[in-house]
């Protein structure tokens, strides 16, 4: 039988791979064409994609490459007998969405999660070439041990110790941005990588990943307001504490009433608002009998300013600790942040924000010591070499 000329990809993967990232065949053709256009190559249309999917025609190498990139697949994934699995990710979504509702995420969000995957691979390579495998100081608290509020408070205390977050240090924060930068930097010092770039807030607020043999990593959504990002950062850090790769959580049906998300939320709130800090900032005449939403506006504003965490978190913590009768009905105080990726920042500044100090510092060391070629960093970041140099040296 005469085979059509071109590259023998698996045609049966195209439609399910497009479905998985929320693309129709027409969108797929348009996006693949944009990539081809950047290389000075002719566009493809929906008929071409349909012909490849029905195996009546085959793509050229460049067309297959743009197809794989658009489908967010590694190139070799086009030749697999089955659709390659997506990376293992635990992500935090908006409260209104079912947890891990991956099928309904937009293409943009899938693409950003694929970027997280590329950054994670870069981080893993850095840890490997710089021999940093043993340098993680994240405390562990298996979920099975976190059955009551006392255990949550104790684990939160250990998290504060691990990130050296004393009451005095927290009360010295002068702004939400300073609080976020301080905690991000402290978490990076535990050996975790913290990435930050904009995603749709209604789809993903943060994600974490810790592969066996790889480093722990967190993604926070730069489009979220800083107090929300701070909460998400500690929520994702709590996931790393609860489920390190070397100590997988074994499901015990008798103990699954409290989900991992609820535990991560409780740990994050307890870490950000411990009793000792509340004691330092709560006035003697606080109206404990009222829900937090009904407390005087001035008092709420002063608490918010002193703690640099969001009103919902303060309300929930006061309720949990019996210091308010409930969180009360509050409008969302979380505004969309200005994030990274907007026009006023240069590419180098934007990528520095994405990557964080730890990644840029380690990449600089690895390149300088000739342990990793700068081209490898360039490919991982999908940035030209001169811009990678600017990111690493600025």
């Amino acid at each position, binding site marked *: 039988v005469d085979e059509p000329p071109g590259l023998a990809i698996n045609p049966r993967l195209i439609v399910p791979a497009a479905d998985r990232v929320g693309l129709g065949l027409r969108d797929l053709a348009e996006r693949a064409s944009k990539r081809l256009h950047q290389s000075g190559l002719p566009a493809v249309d929906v008929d071409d994609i349909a012909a490849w999917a029905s195996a009546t025609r085959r793509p050229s190498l460049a067309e297959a490459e743009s197809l794989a990139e658009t489908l967010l697949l590694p190139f070799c994934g086009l*030749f697999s007998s089955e659709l390659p699995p997506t990376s293992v990710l635990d992500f935090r979504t908006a409260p209104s969405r079912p947890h891990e509702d991956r099928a309904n995420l937009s293409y943009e969000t899938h693409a950003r999660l694929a970027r997280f995957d590329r950054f994670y691979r870069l981080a893993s390579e850095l840890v490997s070439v710089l021999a940093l495998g043993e340098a993680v100081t994240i405390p562990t608290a298996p979920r099975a041990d976190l059955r009551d509020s006392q255990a949550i408070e104790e684990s939160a205390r250990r998290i504060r110790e691990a990130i050296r977050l004393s009451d005095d240090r927290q009360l010295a924060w002068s702004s939400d941005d300073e609080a976020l930068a301080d905690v991000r930097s402290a978490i990076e010092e535990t050996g975790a990588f913290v990435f930050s770039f904009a995603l749709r807030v209604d789809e993903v607020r943060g994600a974490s990943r810790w592969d066996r043999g790889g480093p722990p990593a967190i993604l926070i959504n730069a489009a979220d307001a800083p107090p929300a990002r701070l909460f998400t950062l500690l929520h994702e850090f709590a996931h790393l504490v609860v489920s390190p790769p070397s100590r997988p959580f074994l499901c015990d049906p008798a103990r699954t009433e409290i989900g991992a998300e609820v535990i991560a939320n409780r740990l994050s709130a307890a870490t950000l608002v411990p009793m000792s800090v509340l004691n330092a900032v709560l006035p003697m005449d606080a109206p404990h009998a009222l829900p937090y939403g009904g407390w005087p506006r001035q008092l709420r504003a002063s608490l918010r300013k002193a703690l640099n965490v969001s009103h919902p978190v303060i309300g929930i913590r006061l309720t949990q600790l019996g210091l308010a009768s409930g969180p009360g009905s509050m409008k969302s105080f979380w505004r969309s942040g200005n994030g990274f990726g907007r026009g006023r920042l240069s590419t180098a500044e934007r990528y520095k924000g994405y990557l964080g100090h730890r990644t840029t510092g380690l990449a600089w060391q690895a390149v300088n010591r000739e342990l990793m070629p700068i081209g490898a960093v360039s490919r991982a970041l999908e940035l030209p*070499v001169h811009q990678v140099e600017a990111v690493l040296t600025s």
Partner: protein
Amino acid sequence: VTSLEEFLVLPDTNGVIELIQKGVRTRLLDQLCDDNRLKIVDAVARELKQFASGDAAKWVARNPNAVFAPTQEALDEIARLSRQHGDLFTATGKAADPALVATGLFWQQRGRSPLVVTDDHGVQAVCFLERVEFVPSKAYRALLERT
């Protein structure tokens, strides 16, 4: 690898960037292209246009004749290598990686001695399994300087 005379050099994207950034004269690489002793795999050329800058970008632009566009035979090799060694080509997930090894095999079957210049451990592993000679960019640079 102790001498370069016999080889057809196939650098990967990092290989070209490293060679040129670390001071190998582009005129020397031009000469290798003119002598038909260095080829740029077209997927590598596309990556270089996208990621390289300065001298490396200029070098690939002025050597269009050295760019090797895969024949159907090479495309079939790319498909086979991707199916057989997909797990080893995971570091970047780019088409250039299997294309580089497939180009090596293509020229090997025509009596040439291909030498893949790469620092990528996945590509090196596949070269080893497919019996295609490879060398890290640093070692190749040292050999070039010696000759």
